[in-house]
């Protein structure tokens, strides 16, 4: 076991993170280092696509240069809005599908990475911008915001600010998004350490051969493991992390008294309107009020907090407070080995574990340049499409809950979903946390009994139950009255907001990764991408029913075609646990039932990902919620949220 990473770092994470360079993978200068690292070594530059060349011709070669490994590099970051506008208007990249950053600590810069996408399909265009790394915990130099050009960049820029301390100049509401205002430190910077820090990368030596068990709190005593800002005094600390939030919603509304002093300590917020105003005025005047919905389940979808401003019952403004389920999944992912991450992806959107695994495994396979076996390809499609069916059952069931049809329809559909989960359990060993996909294959093949079980479901039971679902709901007058025309968001706005998944297809955009940027073996099946044009809650319901029928078609064809493949041939190459992924970067995505799930991975050639970013569809779909909800009643806000079908495990990560 000579490939163990010798860890030079001391175990005690006592001191606050200094710039003491905890090397990402603390290995003695081995072969080619991290992606983009070490200018002395020849880093392979990206080959430019025709679009990239066009961009380079327009802006000149000293502005747009080929980036290491993938995409183009924008040398002068102040020209970013100009470049983004050109991409949108001339090159027709109409949405920014992914926006993240990477901390190249050795080279001393942050790289902000943009992936632009055409709604007509094709590969995304990668654009990178670099900012120098600041000292200690300071903010870096600002990067111009592109929210005015791409509305979908809103939450994503806030996330990058939250995690890296990179401010975006011109962003309308730049606050922390997953962490609370007043949090000290920027968690995804490479020199930041979590509370129970043990080492930079797994596996830890203390487990083997060292091995005496120790609880985490014994290993790392409390009070040694938290970072405080300099001069922090717990006795005089009064947190009001929401001051900035209420401030931002109070603007321009007369009659709404929000008295905050800027800062996080001594502000006092009066959210309700001042009662005396009514007596003094001669005419009856209504005040707008701010109401917090959640975080305890505003709509049974998890711990999400919607702060709505109401005029009577009508929503006039909406802000979301996220992060109640935040666990810094991406940092955990950087500590893990490549293999360790597969079961963690199950916990992202825990309803559709199999689809998440596929996204991650697909990206790593792309970097390693391997392909799964035939049999494994079919098993993957089978699992992913069954996942889509069960997720849509769940989504529709809970949409009905949000409409007030408490639990009768939801439980009918959960019964069907449970039968699919029974199948997952018998194959993989677990209902939700399946951990089924492997690099180059899957973990288990089906037995005869399991095959019979899934055939009974796919050919007999599920088709019948989808018919029943439609009988129950599609023509129901109450459902129609509550949903038609509610939550309207036209196609062009949806695209601009980077909306993906069924909600985008219900707005008349036939964009589905399975056809737009194909992966796996979807080209072998006869199926359609259903499109509807209502762009409201009713069509978001109907599109899910149509998609379930298409998925069923794929499952049926898959089961028939699978008979020609060799039983038991489920793993390409030798089964391994210590993978090394060649240095480089990759972005790959899959169509989950919620939308586009992408993974942006950076490898430095070691056993662990250097950067592990998740483009979460639930999170980015929420960006457009405000525009859908404003103008509707409070009760409809809940329904519209339900129609987006988010899962907070993936939103908060």
């Amino acid at each position, binding site marked *: *076991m000579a490939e163990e990473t010798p860890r030079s770092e001391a175990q005690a994470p006592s001191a606050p993170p200094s710039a003491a360079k905890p090397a990402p993978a603390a290995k003695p200068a081995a072969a080619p280092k991290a992606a983009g690292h070490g200018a002395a070594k020849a880093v392979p530059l990206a080959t430019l696509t025709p679009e990239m060349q066009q961009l380079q011709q327009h802006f000149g070669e000293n502005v747009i240069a080929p980036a290491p490994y993938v995409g183009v590099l924008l040398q002068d970051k102040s020209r970013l809005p100009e470049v983004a506008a050109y991409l949108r208007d001339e090159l027709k990249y109409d949405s920014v599908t992914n926006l993240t950053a990477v901390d190249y600590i050795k080279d001393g810069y942050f790289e902000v990475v943009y992936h632009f996408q055409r709604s007509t399909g094709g590969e995304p265009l990668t654009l990178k911008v670099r900012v120098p790394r600041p000292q200690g915990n300071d903010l870096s130099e600002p990067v111009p915001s592109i929210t005015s050009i791409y509305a979908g960049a809103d939450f994503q820029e806030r996330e990058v600010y939250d995690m890296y301390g990179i401010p975006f100049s011109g962003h309308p509401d730049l606050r922390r998004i997953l962490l609370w205002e007043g949090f000290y430190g920027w968690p995804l910077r490479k020199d930041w350490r979590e509370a129970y820090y043990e080492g930079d990368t*797994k*596996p*830890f030596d*203390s*487990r*083997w*051969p*060292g*091995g*005496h*068990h120790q*609880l985490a709190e014994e290993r790392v005593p409390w009070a040694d493991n938290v970072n405080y800002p300099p001069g922090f005094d717990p006795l005089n600390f009064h947190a009001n992390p929401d001051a900035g939030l209420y401030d931002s919603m109070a603007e321009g509304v007369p009659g709404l008294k929000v008295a905050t002093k800027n800062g996080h300590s001594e502000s006092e917020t009066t959210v309700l309107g001042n009662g005396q105003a009514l007596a003094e005025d001669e005419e009856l005047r209504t005040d707008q009020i701010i109401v917090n919905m959640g975080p305890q389940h505003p709509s049974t979808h998890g711990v999400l907090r919607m702060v709505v401003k109401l005029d009577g019952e009508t929503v006039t403004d909406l802000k979301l407070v996220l992060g109640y389920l935040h666990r810094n999944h991406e940092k955990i992912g950087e500590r*893990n080995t490549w*293999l*360790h*991450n*597969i*079961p*963690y992806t199950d916990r992202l959107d825990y309803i559709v574990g199999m689809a998440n695994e596929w996204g991650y495994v697909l990206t790593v396979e792309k970097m390693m340049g391997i392909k799964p076996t035939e049999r494994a390809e079919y098993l993957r499609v089978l699992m992913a499409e069954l996942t889509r069916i069960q997720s849509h059952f769940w989504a529709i069931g809970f949409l009905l809950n949000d409409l007030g049809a408490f639990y*009768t329809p939801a439980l*009918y559909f959960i*019964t069907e979903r*449970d*039968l699919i989960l*029974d199948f997952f*359990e*018998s*194959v*993989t*060993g*677990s209902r939700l*946390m399946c*951990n089924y996909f492997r690099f180059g294959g899957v*973990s*288990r093949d089906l*037995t005869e009994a399991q095959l019979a*079980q899934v055939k*009974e*479901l796919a050919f*007999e*039971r599920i088709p019948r139950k989808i018919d*029943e679902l439609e*009988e*129950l*709901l*599609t*023509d*129901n*007058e*109450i*459902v*129609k*009255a509550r949903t*038609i025309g509610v939550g309207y968001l036209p196609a062009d706005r949806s695209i601009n907001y980077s909306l993906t998944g069924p909600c985008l297809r219900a707005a008349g955009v036939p964009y589905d990764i399975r056809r737009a940027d194909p992966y796996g073996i979807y080209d072998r099946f006869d199926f359609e991408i259903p499109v509807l044009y209502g762009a409201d809650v009713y069509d978001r319901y109907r599109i899910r029913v149509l998609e379930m029928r298409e998925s069923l078609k794929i499952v049926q064809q898959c089961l028939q075609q699978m008979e020609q493949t060799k039983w038991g041939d489920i793993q390409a190459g030798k*089964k391994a*646990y*210590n993978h090394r992924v060649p240095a480089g970067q990759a972005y790959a995505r899959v169509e989950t039932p919620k939308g586009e799930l992408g993974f942006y991975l950076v490898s430095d050639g070691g056993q662990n990902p250097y950067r592990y970013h998740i483009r979460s569809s639930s999170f980015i779909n929420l960006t457009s919620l405000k525009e859908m909800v404003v103008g509707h009643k409070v009760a409809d806000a809940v329904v519209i949220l339900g129609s987006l079908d988010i899962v907070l495990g993936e939103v908060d990560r």
Partner: protein
Amino acid sequence: MALLGTGILKGLGVTLRHFINTYAEDLKYLLNKSAAAQPRPLRRQSPKNKGLVTVEYPKERLPLPENFRYVPFLVFDTEKQEEKCTSCGICAKVCPPQCIWIVRTEDPVTKRPVPQPKEFYIDTTICMNCGYCAEFCPFDAIKMDHDYELSYYPEEQPHMRLVYDKAKLLKPDTYHASIHPLDWQRELADRAAEEAKKKAAAEAKAKAEATKPAAPAQPPTGTA
């Protein structure tokens, strides 16, 4: 839009059908002796079932599939009367939440590692039941369990009790065979194949030695 109510009536019809089916299904099984012999949890879990799907846990339990995985256990070889684990440490390395702790045994004289774990801990409060340890173990020494009821009352100090040591982790291979019949079959077949291979190799070697005496066999004896 005119609210005629046909859609609502149709929907209510579906609900009524569900309601009637819950009774009809049970009645069918009561009247049919051979079908009634099938245990209720199994019947209710079947995709053919139209009636109620719930069972009365904990009086009734759904049957667990063989692949079901919960916190792992160590296999004790009852035939050889020894632990199968060789403390190679692969399970500790592939464990994503790093919940496996192993201490190797050292030979007191030579200080070389002995293939037997001295201590073996699994912190089940951290274990995420992913099954990697069982999947990557080259000796079939660690397997996923079917026992999913691990709760304790707070005064019982669950965080200490749920750290399993070797004594608590070891279970006989007969137990493993009873919950994983297919996997056990595969293990036996693997073992038989390996032994046959070994035997064939030994026979071939013996044959080679028998056919070519003296000359090629000299160097090893000479060096010894």
